[in-house]
C-alpha cells in the first residue's frame, strides 16, 4: 500500500514539476498505456499488481482524466480476501460508477458475498460502497437485505451503524424501493441500544423515515424522550467516550431533538412531562457557568440548546417555554460570539411567527436594528433583515421599513434586491396610510432603482389605480420626484404612467400645469430605453385626452421625424397610430378610448411570488407552474381587452388603436415573461372583478333597526342570541329547527347541489289561535342581492292553530357572498301585531363540492396559495369538548372532503373542496390543528380569494 502510494505520488509530483499541460498528458498517456498492456498481458497479474494499477488508475481519474478501462480488474479485487485489495476495489467502484449491466451484476454479487460474510470489516466496506454509490440499481438489489442486517441480533455495532445510514441513503434516493415492514418496530427499539453510535445512526434513519411515515414510527417518541432524558440528566462523566468537552452526547441529543420535531407534543401526559422537564433542564444549563473555557464546550452545549429551542418553537404549545426560549435567544443576540448571534437571529425568525411569542420577539427590535447597523458580517446582517421582516406588524411597520430603507443605502449588492422586495411587501401589507406607501416605494426607487424589479413598480401602479384616495397625492409626489436632474428610469416609468392617468388632479396648480408636466416627462424621454419611451408615448396620448389645450404640442412631438421615422418598429407604430388617433377621433371617442384605467382585480401580489422565488429552490417548481397558469390566462383573456374598447364601435382602422389606447402597457410590454405575467392583470376578468363586500355586515343582524323590530312581547335580546346560535348550527347541517318561541316554530329542510339549492321552510303555529295576515318575506340586503338569487312563493296568509304551512325557496349562488339573507315574518296573533326576523342559514359553504386529493397534491396546492391575502387563520378556544370524531363529522358536514393521512400530524384535520358559484369556482383548502392541552384550535383557510377564505374561516370557527 505504502509503495503504491509512493509511486502514485511520483506520478502526481512528476506532473507538478512538469508544469506544462502537454507534459502532464504525455506522462499520463504513457502510464495508461503501460497499465493497459499489463492488464492485457498474457501473464495473470497477482493481487498486489492488480491493486497497484487499479490504484494508479484511480489517481489518474482524480487528476481529471477519463478512465475507460480497469473496471473488470477492480471488480476482481472485490472478491479478494485481502483487506487492502478489497478496499481499493471498492474505492474504485464507488468513484467510477459504471452503468454496464454485466459489471453491475458482478459488483452486486461481490457485495452480496461480503454482506453475508459475517466479517464486520468486509460488511463495512460493502455497506460504505452501497451508501456512496446510492444508485437506484443499488437500492433495487439491497433495499430488502439491509433492514435484515440492521435488526439482526448478532450484528456488530459498527456494522449496525453503517447499515442504518446505508438504508437512510437508499431511502433518500429511492423511497419507493425501501419496503416498510416488521423491521420498522425493531429499528425503533434501537433507540434503546447500549451503543450510543448505533443510537445516533438509528435516530438519523428514523427521523427521515418518520417524516414520510409518521404512523409507523409513532412509538419512537416516547423512546426518544426517555433516551434524551437519560442523557440530559446524567452527570457528564456517565457517558464516558460520548462526552464531548463536558457535554454529554451532544450529537445524539441534537438528533433526538430533531426526531421529536417530526411529531406534535406527546399526548401521554407522563411522556410530555418528562420532555418538558428535559427542555427546562437544557434551558437551565444554559444559565450555569461553563465547565470549560474552551469554545468547543460552549459550541456543543449551544448546539443542544438551539435544537431544544427549535423543538419548543415547533410544538408551539407551552407559552412558558416559548417565552424562556425567546429570552435566551435575546441574550444570544448580544453575545460576543458571532456564530451565536447568527443562529439566534435565525431561530427568532421562526419564533416570530408563533402567536404566543410574537410580542416577546418584538421587544428585541432595537437590538436587531442595531445588529443591522453595526454587524460586520454580511451573513449576520442578512439574518437581521429576515428577522425584521418576520417580526413586522402594523405596530412597528413604519419603523422597520424606515430602518430597512436606511440600511439599503449601504447594503451589500448581493442582498439589495431581496431587501427591496421585502420593503415593498411590508409597505403594502401594513400601509394604513397609502401616502406613506407611495412615499416608501418612490424612496425605494430613488435609493436602489437598479434593484427595483418590474414587479415592484407594477404593483405601486396597481395600488394607486385601485385606491382613489391616494391618486392625487401620488401624482403630486411623482411630479416632484421627477424634478430631480437625474432620476432613475423606473421612476420615469411610474411617473409617466401615473401622470398619464391622474395628471389632471394636479393640473390646477400653475406649477404643475399640463404643459409643465408634459415638458418634464419629455425632458427624460431621450435618456430612456425603448420600453420606457413606448410607455411615455402612451402617456402623451392620454394627455391629449386629459389636456386638450396641449394637444397641438403633443401632436408636434409625435409628428417629429425622430418619432414617425424611428428605427424601432414599436415606437414608430405607436407614434403613427397615436398621431392618427388624435387627429381623426372625436373628443367623445377619445374620452372613451383613453378613459382612466379600470381598477385591477385583487390578485396575489407578484412581488411576493418573486421573493419566494429568490428564497428557495424548493418553491421554484411551484412558481413555474403559476407562471404557466398565468401565461395561459393571458392567452385566454386577450380578447375581452377592456370594457372601453368594446363600448366603442368605430370602424376598423381605429379598432386596432383602441387596444393600444385603452391599455398603454400592453404593446409596450418589454420582452421578459415576468412582465407579461403581470400585465395579465390589466385584462383578465376585469369584468368579473368583485365589488368589495361590506366588511362585518353579516354580523350586524342585531343592528339597532332590526333589533327593535324583534319579537314584540318577549325578551328581544334573548331571542336574537338564540337565533344566532341556531343559525350556526345550520352551517354544518341542512335540516332542523331554526327558530322557536311560544307562538311559532320554524323548521328547515334544504338541499344543495353545485351552485343551486332548494330550501323548505315549515312554519308551525304552536298556539290554538289562528295567525292572520301571515307574511314571511326573505330579504337580501343590497350587498347580497347581486350574489344570491332567491325565489319564494307567497304562503297562505292564514295559519290555523296547531297547523303547519310550508314555503319553498329556490336558491342560486351567483358569486361568493358574506352575509346571510334575513327571513322576516309578520302576522297578527290575537290582537297584537307580531314582527320577527331571523337569519336564514344560507351560507357560502353550502355550495361546496368535496374534492379528494393526495397528500402531495394537497401540499402542492397549499403552497401555491401562500400569499398572505389568500390565507386566513384563526386561533380560538374550543367551545365544545374536543372529540376527533365529532370534528370529522363537522368538517364533512361543512361540505369539504375530509382528507385522511394527508397531514403529517395525525391529530390535525385537513379538508379540500370547491365552492361553486355561477360565475366562478373557488378551490378551498382548510387545515384545523387542535391543541388538546390548551383547549385551543388553529384554523387555517387558503383559497384563491381573500373574501372567501375570510368568510369560510368565520363560519367554521364557530363550529368547534
Amino acid at each position: 500500500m505504502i509503495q503504491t502510494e509512493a509511486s502514485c505520488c511520483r506520478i502526481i509530483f512528476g506532473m507538478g514539476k512538469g508544469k506544462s499541460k502537454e507534459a502532464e498528458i504525455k506522462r499520463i498517456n504513457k502510464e495508461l498505456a503501460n497499465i493497459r498492456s499489463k492488464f492485457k498481458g498474457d501473464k495473470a497479474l497477482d493481487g498486489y499488481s492488480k491493486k497497484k494499477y487499479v490504484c494508479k488508475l484511480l489517481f489518474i481519474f482524480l487528476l481529471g482524466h477519463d478512465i475507460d478501462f480497469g473496471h473488470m480488474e477492480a471488480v476482481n479485487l472485490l472478491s479478494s480476501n485481502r483487506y487492502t485489495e478489497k478496499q481499493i476495489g471498492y474505492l474504485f467502484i464507488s468513484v467510477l460508477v459504471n452503468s454496464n449491466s454485466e459489471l453491475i451484476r458482478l459488483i452486486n454479487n461481490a457485495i452480496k458475498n461480503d454482506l453475508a460474510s459475517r466479517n464486520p470489516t468486509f460488511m463495512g466496506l460493502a455497506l460504505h460502497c452501497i451508501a456512496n454509490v446510492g444508485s437506484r440499481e443499488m437500492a433495487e438489489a439491497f433495499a430488502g437485505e439491509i433492514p435484515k442486517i440492521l435488526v439482526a441480533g448478532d450484528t456488530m455495532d459498527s456494522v449496525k451503524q453503517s447499515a442504518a445510514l446505508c438504508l437512510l441513503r437508499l431511502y433518500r434516493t429511492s423511497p419507493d424501493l425501501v419496503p416498510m415492514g416488521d423491521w420498522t418496530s425493531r429499528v425503533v427499539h434501537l433507540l434503546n441500544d447500549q451503543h450510543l453510535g448505533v443510537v445516533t445512526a438509528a435516530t438519523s434513519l428514523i427521523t427521515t423515515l418518520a417524516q414520510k411515515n409518521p404512523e409507523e414510527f409513532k412509538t419512537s417518541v416516547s423512546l426518544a424522550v426517555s433516551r434524551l432524558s437519560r442523557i440530559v440528566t446524567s452527570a457528564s462523566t456517565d457517558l464516558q467516550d460520548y462526552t464531548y468537552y463536558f457535554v454529554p452526547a451532544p450529537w445524539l441529543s441534537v438528533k433526538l431533538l430533531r426526531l421529536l420535531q417530526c411529531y406534535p407534543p406527546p399526548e401521554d401526559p407522563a411522556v410530555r412531562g418528562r420532555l418538558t422537564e428535559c427542555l427546562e433542564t437544557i434551558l437551565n444549563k444554559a444559565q450555569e457557568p461553563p465547565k470549560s473555557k474552551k469554545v468547543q464546550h460552549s459550541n456543543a452545549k449551544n448546539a443542544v440548546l438551539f435544537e431544544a429551542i427549535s423543538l419548543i418553537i415547533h410544538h408551539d404549545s407551552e407559552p412558558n417555554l416559548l417565552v424562556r426560549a425567546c429570552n435566551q435567544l435575546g441574550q444570544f443576540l448580544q453575545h460576543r460570539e458571532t456564530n451565536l448571534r447568527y443562529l439566534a437571529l435565525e431561530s427568532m425568525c421562526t419564533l416570530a411567527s408563533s402567536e404566543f411569542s410574537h410580542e416577546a420577539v418584538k421587544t428585541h427590535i432595537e437590538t436587531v436594528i442595531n445588529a443591522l447597523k453595526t454587524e460586520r458580517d454580511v451573513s449576520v446582517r442578512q439574518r437581521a433583515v429576515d428577522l425584521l421582516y418576520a417580526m413586522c406588524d402594523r405596530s412597528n411597520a413604519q419603523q422597520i421599513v424606515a430602518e430597512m430603507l436606511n440600511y439599503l443605502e449601504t447594503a451589500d449588492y448581493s442582498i439589495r434586491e431581496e431587501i427591496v422586495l421585502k420593503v415593498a411587501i411590508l409597505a403594502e401589507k401594513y400601509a394604513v396610510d397609502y401616502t406613506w406607501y407611495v412615499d416608501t416605494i418612490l424612496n425605494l426607487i430613488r435609493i436602489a432603482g437598479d434593484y427595483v424589479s418590474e414587479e415592484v413598480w407594477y404593483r405601486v401602479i396597481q395600488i394607486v389605480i385601485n385606491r382613489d384616495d391616494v391618486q392625487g397625492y401620488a401624482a403630486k409626489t411623482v411630479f416632484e420626484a421627477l424634478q430631480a436632474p437625474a432620476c432613475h428610469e423606473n421612476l420615469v416609468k411610474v411617473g409617466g404612467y401615473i401622470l398619464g392617468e391622474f395628471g389632471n388632479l394636479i393640473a390646477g396648480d400653475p406649477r404643475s400645469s399640463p404643459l409643465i408636466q408634459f415638458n418634464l416627462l419629455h425632458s427624460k424621454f431621450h435618456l430612456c430605453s425603448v420600453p420606457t419611451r413606448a410607455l411615455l408615448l402612451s402617456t402623451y396620448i392620454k394627455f391629449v385626452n386629459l389636456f386638450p389645450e396641449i394637444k397641438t404640442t403633443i401632436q408636434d412631438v409625435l409628428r417629429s421625424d425622430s418619432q414617425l421615422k424611428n428605427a424601432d418598429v414599436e415606437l414608430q407604430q405607436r407614434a403613427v397610430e397615436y398621431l392618427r388617433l388624435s387627429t381623426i377621433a372625436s373628443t367623445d371617442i377619445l374620452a372613451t378610448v383613453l378613459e382612466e384605467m379600470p381598477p385591477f382585480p385583487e390578485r396575489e401580489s407578484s412581488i411576493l411570488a418573486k421573493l419566494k422565488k429568490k428564497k428557495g429552490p424548493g418553491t421554484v417548481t411551484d412558481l413555474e407552474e403559476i407562471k404557466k397558469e398565468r401565461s395561459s390566462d393571458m392567452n385566454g383573456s386577450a380578447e375581452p381587452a377592456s370594457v372601453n374598447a368594446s363600448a366603442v364601435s368605430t370602424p376598423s382602422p381605429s379598432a386596432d388603436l383602441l387596444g393600444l389606447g385603452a391599455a398603454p402597457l400592453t404593446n409596450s410590454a418589454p420582452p421578459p415573461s415576468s412582465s407579461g405575467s403581470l400585465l395579465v392583470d390589466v385584462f383578465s376578468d376585469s369584468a368579473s372583478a368583485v365589488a368589495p363586500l361590506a366588511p362585518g355586515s353579516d354580523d350586524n343582524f342585531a343592528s339597532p333597526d332590526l333589533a327593535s323590530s324583534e319579537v314584540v312581547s318577549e325578551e328581544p335580546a334573548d331571542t336574537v342570541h338564540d337565533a344566532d346560535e341556531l343559525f350556526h348550527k345550520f352551517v354544518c347541517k341542512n335540516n332542523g329547527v331554526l327558530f322557536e318561541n311560544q307562538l311559532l316554530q320554524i323548521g328547515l329542510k334544504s338541499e344543495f347541489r353545485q351552485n343551486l339549492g332548494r330550501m323548505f321552510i315549515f312554519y308551525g303555529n304552536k298556539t290554538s289561535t289562528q295567525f292572520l295576515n301571515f307574511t314571511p318575506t326573505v330579504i337580501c340586503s343590497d350587498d347580497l342581492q347581486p350574489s344570491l338569487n332567491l325565489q319564494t312563493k307567497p304562503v297562505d296568509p292564514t295559519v290555523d292553530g296547531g297547523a303547519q304551512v310550508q314555503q319553498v325557496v329556490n336558491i342560486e349562488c351567483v358569486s361568493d357572498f358574506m352575509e346571510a339573507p334575513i327571513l322576516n315574518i309578520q302576522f297578527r296573533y290575537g290582537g297584537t301585531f307580531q314582527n320577527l326576523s331571523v337569519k336564514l342559514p344560507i351560507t357560502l359553504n353550502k355550495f361546496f363540492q368535496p374534492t379528494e386529493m393526495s397528500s402531495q397534491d394537497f401540499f402542492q396546492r397549499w403552497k401555491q396559495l401562500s400569499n398572505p391575502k389568500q390565507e386566513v387563520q384563526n386561533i380560538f378556544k374550543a367551545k365544545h369538548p374536543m372529540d376527533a370524531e365529532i370534528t370529522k363529522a363537522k368538517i364533512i358536514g361543512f361540505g369539504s372532503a375530509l382528507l385522511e393521512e394527508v397531514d403529517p400530524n395525525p391529530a390535525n384535520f385537513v379538508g379540500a373542496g370547491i365552492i361553486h358559484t355561477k360565475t366562478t369556482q373557488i378551490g378551498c383548502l382548510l387545515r384545523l390543528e387542535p391543541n388538546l392541552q390548551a383547549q385551543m384550535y388553529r384554523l387555517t383557510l387558503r383559497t384563491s380569494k381573500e373574501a372567501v377564505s375570510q368568510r369560510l374561516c368565520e363560519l367554521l370557527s364557530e363550529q368547534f
Partner: protein
Amino acid sequence: CGATCLHAPWQRCWNEEGVPVSEDTQQQIIRETFHLVSKRDENVCNFLEGGLLIGGSDNKLIYRHYATLYFVFCVDSSESELGILDLIQVFVETLDKCFENVCELDLIFHVDKVHNILAEMVMGGMVLETNMNEIVTQIDAQNKLEKSETFIFQSPRQDR
C-alpha cells in the same frame, strides 16, 4: 448532508452525493468556496449561505480555520450548524491523533488515510460516528490489517 471537504493550500473535493461531478465543476466549486471563505475576517461567523454551485440556499457552507488550513463542510438544513463545527473539530483532533501532530504535509502525502478517517466519520454524506476513540480504534484496526497484509505480500516479492 453532503460534505465537501477542502484544505488550503492543497485542496480536495470529495463528492458525497454519489453522482460523479465533472472535474470542471469540482474545480469551480473549490475555487469559489476558497474565494468565499479565505477573504472572510477572523471574527465573523462560520456559516455561509449557499451559492448556486453548492445546491442553492438550502445548503450552507460551514468552515473552520486552523492556521493555514481551512476545513469546509457543505451541509443541508437537516444538520445542526454548531454540531457540524464540532464535527470538524473532532475530525481535526482525530487527524492529530492518527498522525501525531498533524501538519499540512501529512494531509498531502497521506490522502488515502485522511480519506479513510473521514469515511469513518461521514458515510454517503451522513454523520456516521462522532466519538473520537471509536474512530481511532477503527483506523488502528485498519492499519493493523494493512500492515499484516503488507508483510505477507512482501515476502513473495522478495522471492521474485
